């Protein structure tokens, strides 16, 4: 895998899947409207080569007001997306996002894959928004958060799929990561020792 890596930016080129194209289409709207976001979780492992499908793409979007929400809604509809939870932007903002409930958007007439959008509420979600990693994939921008945080968070989640995603990201970037930062996130998130131990057992030389 050829990529240029720095803690704030990764640049690489590769063949795109339909999922990549869809993600790029979705985030292009956010870029155009200058809405800050980070994509987190499963898609980021897939972006860097993990071979698995996903039914959703998770992202945090900065807290926005009604005007911006309406503008975003209009642009999403124009681009062929629809909200799976509600048919109007007022409910989307007031009943869902402001109540810390995710809203989902998918291509009109489909359910999967969908974009699961939340406002950041927890300390770790704010941290992700403040510590962005910008990925340039074939010269197109996708914003995510620091890899160290994503690995720690994936270790915290309970599923086998999440553990495998953590191992994938760790295996791929272990020579580039800030290991003391990774350990700090693991400690702060309270990742159970048995989950962390799997990482060291699979990568014993680290």
């Amino acid at each position, binding site marked *: *895998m*050829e*990529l240029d890596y720095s803690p704030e930016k990764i640049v*690489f*080129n*590769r*063949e*795109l*899947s*339909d*999922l*990549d194209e869809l993600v790029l289409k979705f985030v292009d709207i956010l870029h155009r409207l200058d809405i800050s976001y980070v994509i987190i979780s499963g898609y980021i492992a*897939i972006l860097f*080569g993990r*071979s698995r*499908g996903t039914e959703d793409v998770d992202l945090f979007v900065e807290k926005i007001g009604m005007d911006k929400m309406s503008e975003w809604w209009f642009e999403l509809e124009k681009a062929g997306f629809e909200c799976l939870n509600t048919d109007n932007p007022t409910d989307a903002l007031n009943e869902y996002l402001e109540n810390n409930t995710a809203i989902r958007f998918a291509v009109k007439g489909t359910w999967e894959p969908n974009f699961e959008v939340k406002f950041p509420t927890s300390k770790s979600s704010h941290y992700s928004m403040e510590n962005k990693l910008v990925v340039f994939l074939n010269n197109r921008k996708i914003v995510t958060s620091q890899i160290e945080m994503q690995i720690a968070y994936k270790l915290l989640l309970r599923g*086998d799929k999440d*553990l*495998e995603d953590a*191992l*994938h990201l760790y*295996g*791929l970037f272990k020579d580039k990561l800030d290991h003391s930062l990774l350990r700090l996130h693991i400690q702060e998130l309270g990742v159970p020792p048995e989950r962390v131990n*799997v990482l060291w057992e*699979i*990568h014993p030389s680290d």
Partner: protein
Amino acid sequence: MLTDSDREEIHQEIARNRRDRLSFVREYTEWLKKTPNAVWSKQHAKFLGKK
């Protein structure tokens, strides 16, 4: 009717499969790292779906 020993065998098999999968993830990332983007991403895009 499964005995305790049968159940223990199943649990061991599940743990073994899980460990095998995690080891495979490590081997796959090692392969990814030494494989040109044009090669791995062609397979990857095909697996994930490409029009």
